[in-house]
């Protein structure tokens, strides 16, 4: 009973927030970039078909006139009723909304139609990273060393681990701009011995040389003195 009450409260809260955001967003600047958040897709796409000759849509915030996917049309991937459907092995592409990983993994096959070599790399584990599962396992995300995010695998049995690809294609590559751009780097860890200064090496070398010469001269002098005297 208490649980259902909580859920009800949550639903009411979410409705209020969404309605608020809908009413607030048209005036805010963010709506300029992301207009599709205002309307559900079905409002238009019940009757509108994907246009075969379009590669730029302000409305969707997609521009295929530049970037690595330059030259493609929206319909190359988004028109389920075209001949592409067959080429894709009858994969219907999911559009928008929250998808779980298995759904995204299914979309990999669409990418594979053009990127066969990379897809083979991916299947064999040579492209993208891999992670693993364990029976009854749990992945706990923590703030680790210097606040860097880290996932601990907490398992009952650490001897039966199973490898799998860590992510689907579109989790790393935005399909509308598939280049992977470099992310920020982390600072060098503390406590390291800094690399030696170039000049110190030179000076050290000269010092060794001079000392050596002085020693040779001194020994020669002593030797001479002993034998002469």
């Amino acid at each position, binding site marked *: 009973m208490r649980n259902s009450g909580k859920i009800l409260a949550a639903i009411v809260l979410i409705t209020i927030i969404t309605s608020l955001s809908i009413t607030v967003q048209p005036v805010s600047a963010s709506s300029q970039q992301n207009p599709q958040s205002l309307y559900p897709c079905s409002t238009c796409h019940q009757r509108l078909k994907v246009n075969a000759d379009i590669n730029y849509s302000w409305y969707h915030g997609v521009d295929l006139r530049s970037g690595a996917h330059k030259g493609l049309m929206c319909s190359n991937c988004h028109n389920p009723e075209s001949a592409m459907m067959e080429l894709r092995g009858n994969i219907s592409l999911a559009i928008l909304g929250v998808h779980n990983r298995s759904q995204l993994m299914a979309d990999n096959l669409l990418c594979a139609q053009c990127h066969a070599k990379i897809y083979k790399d991916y299947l064999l584990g040579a492209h993208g990273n891999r992670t693993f599962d364990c029976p009854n396992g749990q992945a706990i995300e923590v703030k680790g060393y210097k606040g860097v995010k880290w996932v601990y695998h907490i398992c009952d049995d650490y001897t039966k*681990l199973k490898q799998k690809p860590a992510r689907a294609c579109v989790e790393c590559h935005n399909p509308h701009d598939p280049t992977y751009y470099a992310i920020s780097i982390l600072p060098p860890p503390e406590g390291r011995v800094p*690399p030696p200064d170039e000049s110190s090496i030179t000076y050290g070398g000269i010092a060794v040389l001079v000392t050596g010469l002085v020693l040779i001269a001194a020994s020669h002098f002593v030797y001479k003195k002993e034998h002469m005297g």
Partner: protein
Amino acid sequence: MVEGNGKKIQEGKVDEKRRMAIKIAGLAALLSTIDFAVFDKEEFKKMLKKVGLDDILNVAEAREGLGHYEERAKKKEEELKNLCMAAADKICSEKGFASADCLLAKKKCSKITVKATPPDPNKRYAMALDLDKCIGCRRCEYACVMENNTLRNAGMDWIHIYEMDREGLSDLEGARDDYTVAPKKGKVYVPVACMHCENPPCTMVCPVKATWKEKDGIVVVDYDKCIGCKYCVVACPYGARRFNLFPPKLDPLDLNPNMHILGNIPRPVHVVEKCTWCVQRTRDGGVPACVEACPVGARVFGDLKDPNSPIRRVIEEYGVFVLKPEAGTNPRFFYFFSGAKTPRKEGGGK
């Protein structure tokens, strides 16, 4: 004349003493050769044997009976669990018994497992790294520290990432690991850790055989055998070994409960440690932490003997090279250029 005579007499005295000393030294030398001939004949013969390809691929192991390791692992597990629980109790009393930290600490302590998984002789691990993709972000380094229960802030991190000129890759002199802006144009980022060489110089110099190459290709250190002489630190051409100057710290919140007795178990003070390719993960089917953490997927890990493994794909499709081939160490850590370059940052320095 008198003077001369005096000198002669003195010399005569010295002669006798010297003769005695030479006699003793000679005797000692003879004894030592007899000793060598008697006790080390077999060892000597082994050393003189011609080294064939089979010897290189199936290196004889110094690993003793497995029971020994499993017993020790079990003992260590108990010990660590007790220590961890004590530390967890402290956290709980400080932050409250219902706090998230307390629960996580207790959970981790109860899940501590110290394994002694033996090597699978049918496997031969190797790693490859794509220098075109790597952006030098150091995420692998941090992941390594957290996975392997490495001491924090002590310069103990096993992976170092060197920034080098794309053109002069063989020139290690100008390599720096303290850059703060990356990736720059015209530079490559070369993460360096233990190369798990086929001919590891570090294991040859160990006077107590505390480090060796296992049958699956992983070079390990037995922390209980190590006497901390640091010979191996000097012998490694890649600077991959670290000497542990500080006693271990056991913070249950930072602890990785998945441990291997030859891998990431908290190390005692004054021993040498290094990358083990996450032996606690890989021997049981997982992937090393750096491979999991790399945001660009630059790292590839697999079994050289399996034709469908990622590493074989990389070697066959892209071709690989190693660092310092002239050292004759035959590393099993490869580098390659896939051609898919991660864009360098505009204006990222000189």
